[in-house]
């Protein structure tokens, strides 16, 4: 029942945008998010480059549910299955990655192929009328679609198709993939870490231009110490991409492996990076090449996928097992067939800032946990997310977060009302 008091208050008259802190702390809201958001969105599963050959597979949770993604041996299709035996439930894929033609449940040895068909049941004569092999294949996740190699799944059979869902985010995926020469891959090695705060704080943080200078002072000092010219600063704009997706795009004070040289890359990289840039100009024209080479992008694909094309490209997804807990999984994305020297620099560039051992990510985690701890203090009921309302939104404003919150409020409906009586 509606109390008529939504937790997100978007007031165009006073140009104030506020989010009630119960959105980050309430177990009821968290439960509703699992049903209304994570069960009703397209969620990132993985990248097709992780399973290039027939029978290649990876397993991982999607929205906390164990699934696995396998390239079918016969069709070559990317199949995403619920990781559970149709007999009595055990996991049928019990390795994180590998190659296999068959997936056998070890419990009673029911055996499935890479297309999900049930192929073997021991002692099948014991079943009156026989085993219905057609009905007992692995259960596919309800919807699976890819865009430019990014594989998404949805547990909602009625969801709009993926391109419609992605809306304006499609163009930015194109920009990133085409900027990498049209074909990208996930680099081996995964960041799997966790923190103790609400997941929506990581959404905000991943696309927050405002915090960079204050929170990441030690990173900028490091860049300056190796001779990086920071005078250009971080300036740019925020764009609402529709359906809750949003991006900030801004000038790059740091180097970009494609294609902005900086001292970290070394003198001998200057010529290679200049060549990469002129290739982009030849293929895409000066305007688009400039956007690919010198402009950073931090993009949210609603609700829980971040693709940040900054000093390197990171793909990051996350899921909240509780209102104050988040499991993060992150990868590095790179062009296929990249020159070894450029790949090395890209890896290097990633690590200066990103990841649980980088110079920035740990401080972000500290900030998010600090917010969550602050919420417990009470006294202050609302977060203010009004920055930049009433002007053309800049990259260090908060319009991109408002785009997320508006979509969140819409999906949550009355489930995100504040409790009526205090």
């Amino acid at each position: 029942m509606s109390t008529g008091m939504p937790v997100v208050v978007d007031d165009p008259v006073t140009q104030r945008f506020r989010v009630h802190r119960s959105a980050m702390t309430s177990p009821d809201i968290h439960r509703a998010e699992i049903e209304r958001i994570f069960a009703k969105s397209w969620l990132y599963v993985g990248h097709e480059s992780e399973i290039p050959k027939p029978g290649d597979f990876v397993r991982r949770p999607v929205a906390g549910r164990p699934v696995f993604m396998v390239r079918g041996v016969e069709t070559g299709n990317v199949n995403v299955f619920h990781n559970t035996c149709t007999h009595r439930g055990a996991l049928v894929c019990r390795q994180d990655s590998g190659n296999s033609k068959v997936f056998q449940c070890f419990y009673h040895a029911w055996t499935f192929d890479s297309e999900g068909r049930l192929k073997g049941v021991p002692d099948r004569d014991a079943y009156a009328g026989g085993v219905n092999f057609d009905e007992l294949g692995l259960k596919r996740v309800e919807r699976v679609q890819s865009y430019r190699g990014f594989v998404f799944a949805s547990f909602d059979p009625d969801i709009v198709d993926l391109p419609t869902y992605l809306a304006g985010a499609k163009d930015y995926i194109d920009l990133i993939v085409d900027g990498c020469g049209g074909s990208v891959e996930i680099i081996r090695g995964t960041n799997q870490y966790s923190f103790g705060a609400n997941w929506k704080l990581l959404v905000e943080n991943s696309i927050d231009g405002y915090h960079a200078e204050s929170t990441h002072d030690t990173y900028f000092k490091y860049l300056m110490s190796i001779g990086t010219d920071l005078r250009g600063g971080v300036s740019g704009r925020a764009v609402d991409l529709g359906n809750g997706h949003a991006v900030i795009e801004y000038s790059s004070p740091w180097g970009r492996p494609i294609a902005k040289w900086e001292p970290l890359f070394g003198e001998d990289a200057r010529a290679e990076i200049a060549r990469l840039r002129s290739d982009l100009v030849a293929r895409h024209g000066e305007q688009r090449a400039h956007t690919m080479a010198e402009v950073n992008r931090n993009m949210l694909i609603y609700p829980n996928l971040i693709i940040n094309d900054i000093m390197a490209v990171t793909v990051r997804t996350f899921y909240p097992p509780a209102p104050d807990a988040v499991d993060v999984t992150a990868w590095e994305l790179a062009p296929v067939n990249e020159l070894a020297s450029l790949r090395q620099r890209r890896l290097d560039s990633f690590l200066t800032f990103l990841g649980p051992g980088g110079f920035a990510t740990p401080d972000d985690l500290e900030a998010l946990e600090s917010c969550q701890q602050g919420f417990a203090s009470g006294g202050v009921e609302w977060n203010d997310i009004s920055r930049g309302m009433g002007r053309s939104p800049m990259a260090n404003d908060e319009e991109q977060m408002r785009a997320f919150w508006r979509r969140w409020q819409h999906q949550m409906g009355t489930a995100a009302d504040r409790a009526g009586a205090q």
Partner: protein
Amino acid sequence: MTTAAVAVSRQQVEDFLYAEAALLDAWQLDEWLMQFDEDAKYEVPCNDAPDGDPAHDLMLIDDNYVRLTARVTRLNSRRAHREYPHSRTNHQVFNVRVDGSADAISVTASFTVWRFRAGRSNCYVGRYHYRLRRGDGGFRVALKRVELDMTDLRSVGDVAIIL
């Protein structure tokens, strides 16, 4: 180049590792860094790729001397928010094995690193791989590689401390 390497005893190496652990636990990072040669590396592979090669694979940490120095500078400042105030740590080293047959000394050891901060406790478990050189009156570090046994970092959150 020293020739006819003087035999290295495990006890000498253990003493060196214990002293290093004590410097880290005391947050005497400048002194800790002084044990590293200027071509040294400090590496931590990802949990799912413990054999990770920093030339091809994503690492958690792949510091050359410049970045290692920056890491120390950062942790000494008051602006490394995850580590200000600092955690209390206890670096424990054991199962030390030494191969001193070559000019560079190879050492493997097991470790646990306990980290306590703001009421929370985390434990890192894994294996150290060192390449040590004989220096003035002791050893110099050419490589410290830290391979984690935990399958992921979910229980510890991050690697903001030096392992």
